[in-house]
């Protein structure tokens, strides 16, 4: 097998590799700025310089040439090479900054040059704390600067588009953003303008940076040149907790990180998953942070004399059971939702089964033309496939309308039919509407009983995307009833570990008074004497996996280990059946 010697260590390799990626895959490091694994390598930042040589072989005999001491002769490249764009080859010898003073010097020199015109405004820069330039400078940069003349001044606070703001002085011209619009989103909206140390990325004159994926350029910008108009100056990165999760705004299920502080989701960034979204996500999914924070329902609401008033949990459970008990089962309609997780739909389905309600129905939420051939889908819900696999009965909007007309009690989970104009408020006259929901909407306004439930940011639950991949969320923010230090599912950030209750970012204000749907169902079932008990998403998924064939190998452990699991999705041969 071909071999390469990096810093004195011999590694075997197969296939084609770029040296920088190869070194990184080994868990070692070479500093870089312009390289990105999903895009072409322009080798323009010149930071990833290494010394590269090759053992000399005799052309005819194929034997290694030896020097007087019997050591193999090495022919070094006359210049240092950028490791990002050089192929790993057999018999290659590489010296990185770990072992070679020349390489160390070159990298230091390069950082000095990058920094001479950089504003060094880290204290007010959003990127500080997650800035490759800052990190590499601490690690490999010079101790000071010898630059005593005037820096170049360039435009600042340039509004490139509705979501992205440019500070051209911070830009180090790595061209990641222009390559992103050229190679990944293919809108070609960004280009570099001007020349030499005056150049910076911008749009064509009079054009806006409206790319539906524009915020990815903010993520890949290795400095604070491109910032998100929304997130700018909102938080320092080290104050936030970073929790892996799933995008719930469309059917693709992009892997994301939720960044929370003080129980508010402040931003959403994509998380790498080569099977789903690579390093990217659409801008729409990032707007979803608002769903988690704003307009939330906190404490149950109950209609009394035509007006919704705050209720208690005990009261709402009792009301729910009374309303069910008072009606013929045929008049009760349980509507599941593609906007709710597999676990929530399952809990509803189990409750319906025990109550003797024949079926749980749902309708998909699609809008044709919304999707593209990248990460946006026509399906606007994260779990349509999950509902189908659970065997929920899928109705089109017209049939759903018929069923609603015939029912006298309707139970809705996180689907806002009045907002979606599937039925109007007048259709609900004389009917009792129970709405399990996360946010206030026109639909919840007409409900007789509103039960606040947790969002994807507050519970661990799974969603099956349009391609049949099941992936799960991890709670990122606390509710009134959960505690980051006690909930093992939740990640602990720097401030949770080291901050005290007296630090100003720990407040109860942003905790929502809501519970997971399955907890409410457990309580309600127990109160009416039914034998039903759900603990958490993890144990529910084990039950689902036992009962439903498409989910047979699914567990939270397996999903975590493989960044989601691809379910087999052939409706002809394997129609989702209850075992």
């Amino acid at each position: 097998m071909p071999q390469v010697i990096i810093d004195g260590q011999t590694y075997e390799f197969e296939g084609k590799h770029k040296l920088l990626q190869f070194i990184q895959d080994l868990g070692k490091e070479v500093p870089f700025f312009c390289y990105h694994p999903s895009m072409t390598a322009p080798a323009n930042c010149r930071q990833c310089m290494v010394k590269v040589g090759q053992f000399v072989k005799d052309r005819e005999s194929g034997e290694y040439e030896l020097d007087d001491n019997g050591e193999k002769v090495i022919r070094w490249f006359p210049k240092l090479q950028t490791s990002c764009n050089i192929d790993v080859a057999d018999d290659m010898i590489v010296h990185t900054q770990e072992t070679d003073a020349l390489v160390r010097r070159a990298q230091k020199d390069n950082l000095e040059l990058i920094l001479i015109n950089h504003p060094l405004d880290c204290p007010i820069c959003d990127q500080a704390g997650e800035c490759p330039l800052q990190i590499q400078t601490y690690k490999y940069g010079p101790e000071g600067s010898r630059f005593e003349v005037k820096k170049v001044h360039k435009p600042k606070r340039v509004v490139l588009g509705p979501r992205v703001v440019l500070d051209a002085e911070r830009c180090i011209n790595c061209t990641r953003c222009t390559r992103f619009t050229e190679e990944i989103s293919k809108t070609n909206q960004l280009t570099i303008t001007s020349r030499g140390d005056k150049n910076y990325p911008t749009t064509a004159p009079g054009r806006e940076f409206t790319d539906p994926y524009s915020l990815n350029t903010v993520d890949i910008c290795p400095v604070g040149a491109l910032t998100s108009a929304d997130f700018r100056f909102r938080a320092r990165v080290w104050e936030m907790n970073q929790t892996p999760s799933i995008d719930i705004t469309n059917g693709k299920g992009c892997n994301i990180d939720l960044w929370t502080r003080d129980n508010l989701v402040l931003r959403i960034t994509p998380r790498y998953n080569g099977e789903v979204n690579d390093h990217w996500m659409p801008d729409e999914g990032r707007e979803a942070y608002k769903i988690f924070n704003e307009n939330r329902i906190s404490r149950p609401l109950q209609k009394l004399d035509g007006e919704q008033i705050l209720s208690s949990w005990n009261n709402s459970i009792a009301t729910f059971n009374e309303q069910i008990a008072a009606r013929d089962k045929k008049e009760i309609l349980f509507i599941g939702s593609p906007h709710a997780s597999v676990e929530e739909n399952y809990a509803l389905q189990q409750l319906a089964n025990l109550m003797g309600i024949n079926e749980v129905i749902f309708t998909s939420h699609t809008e044709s033309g919304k999707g593209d051939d990248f990460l946006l889908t026509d399906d606007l819900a994260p779990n349509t496939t999950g509902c189908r696999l659970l065997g929920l009965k899928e109705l089109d909007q017209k049939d759903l309308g018929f069923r609603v007309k015939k029912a006298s009690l309707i139970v809705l989970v996180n689907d806002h039919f009045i907002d979606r104009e599937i039925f109007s408020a007048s259709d609900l006259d004389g009917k009792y509407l129970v709405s399990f929901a996360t946010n206030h909407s026109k639909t919840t306004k007409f409900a007789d009983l509103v039960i606040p439930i947790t969002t994807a940011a507050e519970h661990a639950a799974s969603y099956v995307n349009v391609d049949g991949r099941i992936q799960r969320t991890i709670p990122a923010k606390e509710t009134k009833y959960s505690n980051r230090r006690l909930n093992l599912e939740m990640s602990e950030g720097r401030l949770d570990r080291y901050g005290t209750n007296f630090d100003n970012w720990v407040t109860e204000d942003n905790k929502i008074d809501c519970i997971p749907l399955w907890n409410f169902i457990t309580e309600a079932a127990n109160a009416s004497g039914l034998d039903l008990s759900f603990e958490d998403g993890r144990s529910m998924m084990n039950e689902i996996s036992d009962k439903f064939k498409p989910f047979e190998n699914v567990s939270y452990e397996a999903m975590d280990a493989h960044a989601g699991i691809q379910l087999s999705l052939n409706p002809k041969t394997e129609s989702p059946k209850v075992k």
Partner: protein
Amino acid sequence: MSTVDWKNYEPVLIPDIKDLHKIDVYEKNGGYQALKSILTDKKKWADPKSVINEVKEANIRGRGGAGFNAGLKWSFMPPADGGARYLACNGDESEPGTFKDRKIFEYNPHVFIEGALIAAYAMEITTIYVYIRGEYLTYIKMMEKAIEDAYAKGYIGKKIFGSSFSVDFYVHSGAGAYICGEETSMLESLEGKRGYPRVKPPFPAQKGLWGRPTTINNIETLAHVTSVINRGAQWFKNIGAPTHPGPILYGISGHVNKPGVYELPSGVPVLDLINDVAGGIRNGKKLKAVIPGGSSTPVLRADQLDGITMDADSLRTVGSMLGTAGMVVMDEDTDMVDMLWRIAHFYHHESCGQCTPCREGTGWLEKVLLKIKNGEGEIRDLDLLLDVTTQMEGRTICALADAAAWPVRFTINRFRDEFEARCKKSVHALA
């Protein structure tokens, strides 16, 4: 070293013939006979390979500055596969001090066109582009006219001279960027993109214009091809310096009495060029310094020039290069600090901004030089300048960083006392 006999040399690229730029006049003086010969004389030129071999044998070293054997470069083209192949002729000519190709565009465009067509035949090329710097608007128009005339006469187009060889020829204008004279950024510019040099490999012969095999030659190089085919490789090799043979268009500018472009053999002594060809230094002043081949080649002091001839090997012995043979002559009144600042200003202005060392380094050099020029520099700034040049050199994609660093390094090293004299006095008295 035997002196090259330059006094009896008869110019072939820019001979003294009136209206040679007109196609009729060019034809009357033996024009397009070389092209006709290679296309029709199957006894002499059996196949395109034989043309490449002849050019390789002549050892035409590229006149754009790098001095690489043109025929050898042609032989790097992969075998034809039926797809498009390009010849890109580099007439960007933007190195300060260089103005030789302009002479060809103006006085003898057809010798270049013929050379390009021969090259195209030799490499089985389907399309020729000539990239001319935008400032040469007049010559762009003249070239367009010349190409139109050649199309009309059937020298360009389908089935030239009844052979199976067909080719198209386009003029493309630059937009004023020095960097577009770098061969791969010229390709980017031809493709309508920003003039950023490409990372090599892949080399243009493998993946050039629009990803297809491409050869890039200088205008003068291609003009010489016509003479080589007309007169034979041996004729070419017998002219001038043995390791760098053939005629060269010397562009002499600066403080001389008769600046201009002179076609002479390679290897003419530098002092002969200044004193005899260009009529000596203006106003009877003394020679101070010479930049031999365009602003990026290291400057030479007058006392370094004895016995030095204009070819790569001789110039290397005193630490300079032939470059484009665009010679800048400076008399004793020249302020080297001002001169160097002006060159540094040029490279700062022209750096494309792709690679960090060049983008940032060229500006740093210029700003420190400006400080010294204004009498605000300190002696440590000179060492800083030298250090910055080492931080730039050899660490970028193209050679612009080297081109910007060398003048600074060598001018300071060779005229250090002048630079120190412009710096602030040291606070420490020596005695």
